[in-house]
C-alpha cells in the first residue's frame, strides 16, 4: 500500500508519495509557499485539511478533496474581539471521531460540526476558572493535543503548554485538570494543579483510559484516563522530548528523546528514535539508517507520525529539514530525497 505524507515546514507544505512498498519516494514542489504549515489532517470522508500561519498574515485553515485544489475556510477558528486574545496558529486538527476539534495558540479549543466550514469556541475549556493563571511555555501558550474516546466521544482530553491536561466527560461542557503525578514546570501560586508542560499525548485505540504523555519533565502513562500518572522511562537516555506516536495495530510507541530542556539536542549527537513494544515499560534505541555522529537536529512535537500498516511505517521530520522514514516499525531507516525548511508537522495518509 502506498502512502502520502504532508510535510509541513516553516516555508510551505511538501507532498511526499511512496510506491506500494513504501521504499521509493517522490517529493513535490511546495504548496502554500512561504507559509508555515503547522498541522494537517484528513477526515473520514477523505477531505484534507491544512493549517497555515504567518508571522505577518496570521493563520488560516484550508481544505481539499484531492490534494491539488485548495480552498481557504472563510470562518475558521477565531477569538472574539472583546476577549483581547490573538490567534497566532492552529496547532492541531482532530477531525473525529465525534466533533472536529482544532487546538490553537493563544491557547484554546474550537469545534466544528460541518466538516470545518464553521467553528465555535469550546467555552468550558477556553474560559476555565484557571485561565487567568495560564502561562506560556517556550513554544507559546498553545492547545496542541486532543484525544477523543472512540467508544464515548463525550470524553475528550486536551493538552495545553504550559498548563497541563484537561479532560471533559460531557462533550466539552465542563473540564477538569488531570495532572496528578506530574511535576509542575512553573508552580502556580493559586492553582497548584496547573503549571505542567505537556508536550504530546497518545491513547490506546481500544482503551482510552490508557494514555501516554510526553511531558516536559519526563515520560508518563495513565491507566485511568488521566486521573493519575506514572513515570515510564526505563531505557530512555533522557527525560526530555516532544513527539510521541503509537501504531494502533501493535500498540508500539515511538519517541524522540533530547538532551534536557536547556539544550534540546539529540544526546551525544546521536539521532535516535526510541521504541517501546510493551506499553512503555521498556524503551530501545533505533539507529539503523539514522545519523549517529554529529547529528544535533531536533524533532518538533508535531513532526512524527505513523501509518498503522503492517509492518508499521514511521515518519520523522527534523529541524534541519531532513525527513527519515521507516517501513519496518523502525528497524531500519532511509532519508527522503530532499532537504526542506525546518519541519513543523508530519502527517501520513494511507492511499489504499
Amino acid at each position: 500500500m502506498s502512502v502520502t505524507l504532508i510535510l509541513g515546514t516553516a516555508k510551505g507544505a511538501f507532498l511526499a508519495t511512496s510506491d506500494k512498498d513504501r521504499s521509493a519516494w517522490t517529493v513535490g514542489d511546495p504548496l502554500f509557499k512561504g507559509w508555515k504549515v503547522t498541522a494537517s489532517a484528513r477526515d473520514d470522508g477523505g477531505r484534507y485539511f491544512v493549517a497555515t500561519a504567518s508571522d505577518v498574515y496570521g493563520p488560516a485553515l484550508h481544505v481539499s478533496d484531492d490534494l491539488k485544489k485548495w480552498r481557504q475556510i472563510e470562518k475558521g477558528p477565531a477569538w472574539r474581539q472583546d476577549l483581547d486574545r490573538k490567534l497566532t496558529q492552529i496547532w492541531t486538527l482532530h477531525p473525529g471521531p465525534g466533533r472536529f476539534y482544532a487546538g490553537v495558540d493563544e491557547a484554546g479549543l474550537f469545534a466544528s460540526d460541518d466538516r470545518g466550514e464553521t467553528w465555535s469556541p469550546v467555552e468550558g475549556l477556553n474560559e476555565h476558572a484557571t485561565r487567568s493563571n495560564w502561562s506560556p511555555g517556550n513554544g507559546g501558550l498553545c492547545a496542541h493535543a486532543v484525544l477523543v474516546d472512540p467508544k464515548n466521544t463525550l470524553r475528550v482530553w486536551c493538552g495545553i503548554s504550559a498548563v497541563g491536561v484537561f479532560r471533559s466527560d460531557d462533550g466539552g461542557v465542563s473540564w477538569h485538570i488531570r495532572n496528578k503525578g506530574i511535576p509542575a514546570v512553573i508552580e502556580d501560586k493559586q492553582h497548584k494543579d496547573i503549571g505542567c508542560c505537556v508536550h504530546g499525548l497518545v491513547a490506546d485505540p481500544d482503551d482510552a483510559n490508557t494514555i501516554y504523555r510526553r511531558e516536559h519533565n519526563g515520560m508518563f502513562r495513565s491507566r485511568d484516563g488521566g486521573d493519575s500518572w506514572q513515570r515510564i522511562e526505563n531505557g530512555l537516555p533522557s527525560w526530555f522530548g516532544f513527539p510521541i506516536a503509537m501504531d494502533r495495530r501493535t500498540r508500539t510507541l515511538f519517541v524522540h528523546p533530547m538532551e534536557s530542556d536547556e539544550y534540546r539536542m539529540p544526546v551525544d549527537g546521536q539521532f535516535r528514535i526510541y521504541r517501546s513494544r510493551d506499553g512503555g515499560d521498556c524503551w530501545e534505541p533505533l539507529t539503523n539508517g539514522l545519523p549517529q555522529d554529529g547529528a544535533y537536529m531536533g524533532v518538533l512535537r508535531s513532526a512524527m507520525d505513523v501509518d498503522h500498516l503492517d509492518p508499521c511505517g514511521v515518519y520523522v521530520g527534523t529541524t534541519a529539514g531532513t525527513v527519515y522514514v521507516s517501513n519496518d516499525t523502525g528497524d531500519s531507516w532511509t532519508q527522503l530525497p530532499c532537504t526542506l525548511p525546518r519541519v513543523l508537522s508530519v502527517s501520513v495518509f494511507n492511499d489504499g
Partner: protein
Amino acid sequence: MGKVTIELPSVLDAVVDGNRTLSFDAETLPGALAALTKRYPGLAVHLFDETGGFREHVLCFHNKINTRWLESIDVPLRDGDTITILQAVSGG
C-alpha cells in the same frame, strides 16, 4: 467615487486567485478595503487582527504615504489612487 487600484503582495496570491492588482470604485480608503474583503472574504483574516486594525506587520500605503503615519485611515480617495499592501521587512 474614484476608481482606485489595490496592489497585494505575492504571498497572498492564492487568497485572491492570483489577482494581485485589483480595481475598485471607492470614496474612502476603508471603503476600498471593505470592497476588497467583500470580493475576497478570506483576505480579511490576513490583513486585520482581532482588534479590527491592520496586523502588526502589515503595511498599507495610500499612494506614497504609509497610512500608519496618519491619525486616521479614513481618507478620501481620488480617481487613479493606488493602495499598496506590503509586509514590514526588517532584519537581515
